[in-house]
Every structure is written in C-alpha cells, then in structure tokens.
C-alpha cells in the first residue's frame, strides 16, 4: 500500500476554500464613476415605485406597477395586458442584445459598474471598511481571537448589513402593489403573507450574496462571465496590465541601483490590495476580473507618486495592446467602436425598439372576440327564421368605462340583439357598457331568414362611442339547418 501522503496531494483537492478578500479603499476617476453609478442605480431602484402617475379614477396612480393580482403591467403612459406580454418579451430581447452591444464595445462594463451583485457588494464593503477599518485592520481583526471587541464589531457590521438587506428586499415588493398602501400595511402587519415571504427571501439572499458570497457569485454562479467571454473580441475594451512596460518588476530602489534593467511596475501590490475580487491583474485577463477598474485608479496613483506615466494598468483592447507592444499607434477609437459586429447589434437592437414603439403607438385599446355556440349550432324559429347565438368578449383597455357598439356586416337581412334585448326590438347594432380596464361579456343573438346557404361568413365589429377611430372586427359563421322536408 502506498503512502497516504502521496495519494492525498494537497494540490489535487476537489474543494478549494475561499481565500478572504479585504479590498483596500481607493480613490480616483473610476472610483468616482462607480460612486455616481451606484447612486443612480440605487436611486432608480428605491424611488421608482414611489413615483405617481395620474391615470384617472379607474386605474392605479403608480408610475411603475406590476399588478399580478389583476394581471396588468403599468409603466408610465403604457399599460400592458397579459395578451400583450410580447412587449415585455421584446424589452427582454432588447436588454439582451443591448448587453451584447455594450460587451462587444466596452467589455464587461455591466459587471464592473451596474450589476446588482457588484453594486451591493461594493456597498457592503464600504460598510465593512467603515466598521472594521481598512484592509490591514480587517486582516488583524480576522486573525484576532474572539473577544468582546471582535464580537461587538461583527455584530454591528452584520446588523448594518441586515438593515441594508432588508431595505433592499423591502423595496422590491413596492413594484407589485400600491407603494404607500403596502408600506402602511407592511408595518402594521396587515400585508399579505407573500409580501413578508418575498422580503424575507430577498433579505436573506442580499445578506448572503453581498456579505459573504461576493466574488464567488461572479466566479462560480453567474452565467454572464461565460456569455460575455464569448461576446468579447480583440476590439473590446478590457482592463489590461501592460506587461511589456511593467516587467520585470522592481522596487524604486532597485531601479535606481540598476537603471535600465527594470520595468515600470514597482511591485507595490496596490492593484491586488484594492481588487474587490482579490485577483492579481498582472497575471493577465481572467474570469475573476469584473473590470471595475479600481486597480487602474490604484496604479495611476502609484505612478503619479513615483513620477512615471499613468496607464500601466489601463482600459485597452487586445488589438491595441499588440500594436502598443510593437511600438505602433492605437487603432482610432471610432474605427474600433464602429465595426460590423457593433453595427449589427445596434441595428438589430434599434429595429426591435422601433418596431415596438410603432406597435405601441398603433395598438387599439378595444378588442372583440366572439365564440359561436356549439350546441345548438342554430335554432329554428317559429316564423321560419333561424337564430344563431354567440358569446362575445369585449376588451376595454382604456382606463374609463366605455359604451361600446357592436355591429354586424355581411349577413343580408339579419337582426342582432343581446341577452338583455329581445328579437322584437332587435336592430343592426347592440350597445354594451364595459367597465373601465376590463373585459365585458355579452351573449349575442342573430336571426336571419331560413332560406340561405347552410354556412355563411359574416363579422362583428366593435367601436367605442367615445372614440370611433379605433375598432376591432371578428369573423364568425352563421349556420342554418339542412333543408330536408
């Protein structure tokens, strides 16, 4: 039997324990950009459900509302009914293609700046630094034995995290109900169970993902890095360490001692210290890099201090990197930006957007569908006429009650009445009151002379009395008995 040590080679372990990441605070252009984007994205997230939008007395006054109970989706001036869900699908397609476009042009900008995972992790790390101190203090605290101070710090950090997590999960539910009402009900314990459950689940996930999982979400769980890796090419911007300029590394002192034999990187490890995912960009592009550009900020600061040109770590396309290495000038930015790939993405994205705008602008907010009675298909009337019956559904997609007029065309001397009318008073049209933003149902009777083809096509047309321009038509059949006797 072989020696256990030989079999259990530590290198071959199937499980790698997470190495703690304690990113150092940094300031600079990209850090400022990140602050700004964090403010904007969090602002949008928290404020949106509270924006009011007057739709009159028959519809909610919340600008953005996903009303699951009543199956309506409100977004400012647009209201979407369940059968129009393709607008939402279209928006998702646009979001997808938009991400392709952004990724092929500027790389993983989504990951670095606007992904919720990034934004909340960033927020959590700021809280961590505010309570535990910067990188080195965090190291010390981590290694320190559990004592009063450590417990107090941990408890206060987790409490603040939990509060942020609750605020995050809490804000989510306001998109699905009237925000002020729900807020009141939520705090008085009257809200629906599903509201509390949602807040609970989202609080837990935020707390765990932002506080403990962090970069592991990006490296192991998220599909985006894989997809984005496929979307990027040699003309996509990415954070690059210019090894041709930096290597071999050596401290300022060494460089002074042996001028000419060292590169620009002084091996200060600042880029590693600030990295929120704990990687070393100098090892080359890697999946752990979310291109947040904080290492650029850190490195630029160092270069300023030692009096060397900025941009040892920089946003560069890999094509430009090759050119620069060979001592040539970069490809012009416009040429990099406008290339078949980006133009194709942009045109597809724009075409879908235009098509949706056109469709939204042209849709009618009225709709009729009529079902012919199956049993019986026709009814012989005493005076020789034949009657058919239909069940019509009238969609009133406007936020006001409307009187609708159903008329028929294409059926000779027929008359039309509804279950509320009578054949004696029947005419060519039927009027129905349909409540605001709902579907009205009416039973229609049509009587026509018994002599005629066994099956005749005709149509119902619906118009709203307050807006004659919009109408909808549905084709149906009129059936007669076989002539036997």
């Amino acid at each position, binding site marked *: 039997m072989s020696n*256990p040590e030989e079999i259990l080679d530590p290198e071959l372990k199937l499980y790698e324990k997470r190495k703690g990441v304690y990113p150092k605070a940094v300031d600079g252009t990209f850090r400022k950009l990140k602050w700004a984007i964090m403010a904007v994205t969090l602002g949008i997230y928290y404020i949106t459900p509270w924006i009011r939008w007057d739709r009159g007395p028959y519809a909610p006054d919340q600008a953005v509302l996903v009303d699951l109970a009543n199956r309506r989706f409100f977004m400012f001036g647009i209201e979407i009914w369940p059968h129009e869900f393709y607008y939402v699908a279209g928006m998702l397609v646009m979001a997808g293609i938009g991400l392709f476009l952004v990724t092929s042009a500027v790389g993983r900008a989504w990951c670095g700046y606007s992904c919720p995972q990034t934004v909340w992790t960033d927020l959590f790390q700021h809280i961590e630094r505010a309570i535990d101190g910067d990188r080195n203090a965090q190291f010390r605290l981590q290694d320190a034995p559990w004592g009063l101070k450590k417990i107090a710090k941990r408890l206060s950090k987790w409490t603040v995290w939990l509060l942020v997590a609750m605020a995050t999960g809490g804000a989510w539910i306001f998109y699905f109900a009237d925000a002020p009402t729900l807020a009141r009900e939520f705090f008085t314990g009257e809200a629906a169970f599903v509201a509390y459950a949602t807040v609970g689940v989202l609080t837990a996930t935020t707390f765990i993902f932002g506080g403990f999982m962090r970069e592991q979400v990006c490296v192991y769980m998220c599909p985006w890095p894989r997809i984005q890796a496929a979307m990027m090419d040699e003309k996509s911007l990415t954070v690059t360490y210019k090894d041709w300029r930096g290597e071999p590394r050596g401290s300022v002192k060494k460089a002074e001692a042996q001028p000419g034999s060292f590169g620009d990187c002084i091996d200060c490890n600042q880029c590693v210290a600030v990295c929120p995912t704990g990687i070393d960009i100098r090892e080359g592009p890697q999946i752990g890099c979310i291109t947040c550009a904080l290492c650029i900020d850190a490195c630029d600061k160092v270069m300023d201090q030692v009096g060397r040109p900025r941009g040892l770590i920089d946003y560069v396309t890999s094509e430009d990197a090759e050119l620069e290495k060979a001592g040539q000038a970069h490809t012009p930015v416009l040429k990099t930006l406008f290339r078949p790939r980006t133009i194709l993405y942009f045109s597809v994205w724009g075409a879908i957007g235009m098509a949706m705008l056109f469709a939204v602008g042209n849709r009618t907010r009225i709709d009729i569908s009529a079902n012919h009675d199956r*049993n019986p298909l026709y*009814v012989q*009337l*005493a005076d020789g006429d034949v009657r058919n019956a239909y069940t019509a559904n009238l969609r009133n997609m406007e936020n006001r009650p409307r009187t609708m007029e159903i008329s028929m065309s294409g059926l000779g001397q027929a008359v039309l009445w509804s279950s509320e009318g009578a054949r004696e008073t029947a005419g060519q049209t039927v009027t129905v009151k349909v409540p605001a933003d709902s579907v009205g149902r009416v039973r229609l009777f049509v009587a026509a002379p018994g002599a005629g083809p066994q099956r005749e096509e005709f149509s119902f047309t619906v118009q709203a009395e307050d807006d004659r321009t919009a109408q909808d038509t549905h084709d149906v059949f009129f059936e007669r008995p076989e002539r036997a*006797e």
Partner: protein
Amino acid sequence: MVDKQRVDEATGTKTVGHEWDGIEELDTPMPRWWLWTLYATIIWALVYVILYPAWPMLNSATEGVLGWSSRGEYQKAVDAREAELEPIRQALVSTDIHDLPKNTALLNEAIQGGRSAFKVHCVQCHGAGAAGSKGYPNLNDDEWLWGGDMEAIEYTLIHGIRNPDHDETRFSQMPAFGRDGILQPNEIQDLVSHVRVLSNREQPSASATRGAALFEINCTICHGNDAKGDRMQGAPNLTDAINLYGLDRASLTETITNSRYGVMPRWGQRLDAATIRMLTAYVHSLGGGEAAPVEDASAEQAAATSEGETPSDEQS
C-alpha cells in the same frame, strides 16, 4: 472472514473482510446526512401512521388520530360551497318571480346555477345544449306548448307534464284518430295534407281542401280556428315552422293515427324551490324566453297573493 478485517493504511478505514482476487472493499460508514435523512424518514413514517389512515384492516384502514379521510375532505369542500350559495338560494326563493328579471345580479347567479342543475337533471331528454330532439322540445326556440314566460316555465317544472297521479300537472290528450276509428286512413291523409299546407310544406291540393273540412270538425276545438294552437291545453301551433314530432307526412300520419303522449316528471317533488327557480331562469335565458303577459300578471297578483301593491289596471 472477520479475521481478515484490517485497517487500510491509505484511508484509515476498516475493510469489510472479503477479498476477491486481491480486491478488497472498504467498510466506509454512511455519510452523516444520509443517515440522518433515513432516521428522519423513519420518524416521519411513525408519526404519519399514527395521525393518518394507514394499516389496511378487513373492511377499512385504521382511521388515524386526526380522523382525516379524502371523502371527508370532499364533503367539507361541498359543504363550504353550499354555505356560500345559501344566501343566493334564499334570495331566489324570497324574490317574486316577476321581479327576478329586474335584479340582474341575482338573475345571473340563477342562470349559472340553472346551467349546472340542467346538466344533472334535464340533459337526458333535452340534450346538453337544451336543443331537444324529436318528441323532446327544443328549449332554445320561441315555440312554447305551455307558455314561455318565467312563471309558466316554473309551473311546468314544478308540476310536470302528464303526471297522472298529480292534479295540477299540465295535462292534455289528443285523440288517437286512427287507432280509435274516428277517422279513416284516407281521411287522415287528407288531414295530413291540410296541416302541411298550413305550415307551407305543401301546395294546396284537393286532398288538402278535404282535409280542411275534417280539420274544422275534429281539430279546431283544441288547435283553434286559425290552427294556432292553445297554450291552456298545450295544443301546438300548426302553422309555424316548428313541430315537436316532425312535419313530414309519415310523422304527421303517426301523430294523428296514434296520438302522442309525452311526459315530463314534476320536479317539484324532487328538487328544492331554489333549484327549480334557477332552472327556470336558465331555460328562460336560452333565447326563447318570453316577457310575462301583463294581464296575466295582474290577475295572478289579485288571485294568489295579497302582498305587493294593488293592481292598478284591474278596471281596464
């Protein structure tokens, strides 16, 4: 075997003691989570057996402490629904049938309920779409033997048609003109011609003219001088496009020779008043329902009930 057991150096685990061609098996213990899951399922099973029906016995299974049964669940659901519907049923019974059409909400509830009840009690004869068939009237059309306003429909439903053991039942009997020897077969053929001319199925003929004379003597008492029938006696209108037993020569010959005797049960003894009212509303809603005749309503009010306002048109 056991003596062959030894500790494997590489893993520090005992072997099971078997050896096949130098291959040994490690006695690796069950993973903890697996073991605990097993224990948990055992406990679960024990609790389940105590709480719920489990052991099959001769006639039924053990009942379980909770007394749960799928039949019980079903009964509970049915009871809950009945309780929900109770107010509607009560409102239906206490509303005057003439007022029902005005109360749209209640009427709609009644029609819904009637639709279900119809599927249980009536489809056997009248068909799923209430379109009937030969001998079973189509309830969608506008021809009514006994009247098509709500009150008349309800009366028919409660008392049925031709229930010999019931005084208030709708009753009429057409003579079997041929079988009883009242008319000769050739006379019956003449009558058939006449009836077919009445409903525009045939061109006037000598036979039809002879039939007209026979009709006047034998049929007008019930079917009327104009052959338009009489609802008091359930005598059908012979001039329109609808006939319960068919207007072809063979059917008419059979009807006049042997007469017909359609029967409908009286639902008053089988169904409660609310269900009957629901059925009434449903049948009335199918398309042929008639408005209550004005003079009938006032007479009815004066005669049957003392409640409500005094009929103002009594003198007119």
